[in-house]
């Protein structure tokens, strides 16, 4: 069975909106470290946080996150 990992385009989309990690953290109400670890795929966010991030960035969860099959 292939192993699944969560990939994300958070850094890319955040960059296009001209936001820093701190700005996005302030808009989403989480710490900058949370944004950093999600971007680096160290931490898998909950559905709630994923939806909040997508809403904050004006995009969809599917645009923001995708599955990597290995």
């Amino acid at each position, binding site marked *: 069975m292939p192993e699944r990992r969560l990939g994300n385009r958070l850094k890319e989309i955040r960059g296009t909106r001209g936001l820093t990690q701190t700005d996005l953290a302030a808009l989403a*109400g989480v710490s900058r470290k949370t944004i950093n670890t999600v971007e680096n795929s160290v931490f898998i966010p909950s559905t709630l946080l994923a939806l909040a991030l997508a809403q904050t960035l004006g995009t969809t969860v599917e645009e923001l996150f995708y599955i990597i099959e290995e």
Partner: protein
Amino acid sequence: MVEPSDDEILAQERERDRALTRTKLWSVLFWMAFALLLVVAFNYGIPQRVSRWAGLPEAAVVWLPIIVLALLWVLALIYRLRMNRARAPLRPSVQRKLVDIYTQRQRRILIAFIPLAAFLAFNQFNISRERAAGDLAAVFAQGAFVFFMLMMALMLVLGPGFLNSRFRSASADELNRALRGRAGALGYVCAMIALGAVYLVYSFAPPDLGRTIPFCMVLAFLVPAIYYVWCDWRAGRDA
């Protein structure tokens, strides 16, 4: 009406936090003073005199005021926590800053406790090697050590401001919870290893038990604490 700025709200939150700290300090002082009064009362045989005078059992004279005071204290705490007005949710930008402030404070406390625990373990190890070869009572007589370990475990679990609802919501930050979960899982493994080691030493080398127990207790605290601090530090760095 002008909305208060983030910094103004943060200043209010800090003042509220200081007020809670003062309440906790007064509670501690109250119980210390009460304990001191009890010691003095026992020293002068007051409970015995009162029990003779009132015709009550001595245990009732000792325990009744303690139970009444404890109940009053719990009721006061419940009143303080529950009868306050519900506080409006914070703006996300303020919430983020509070998460940072509380996480930083928690991390500093943890870092301060790590060398303290290591020092106490080393100290205890030496005491038990010299005095308590095979004498468990001598090891457990060092109540201060056990007290410190419990305090540190509580600090790790509850954090420094568990009476503050803002602190509770800030410490429920997703990353913080995940890091605590990881550290907790590692702590569980360490505690199981420590228990296994204590059992083996008890079975095969009982005289060394006094030297093993402090080492095992510290292992169960230090390893997850250091791991938590390391993970937290890593979380702030770019990949």
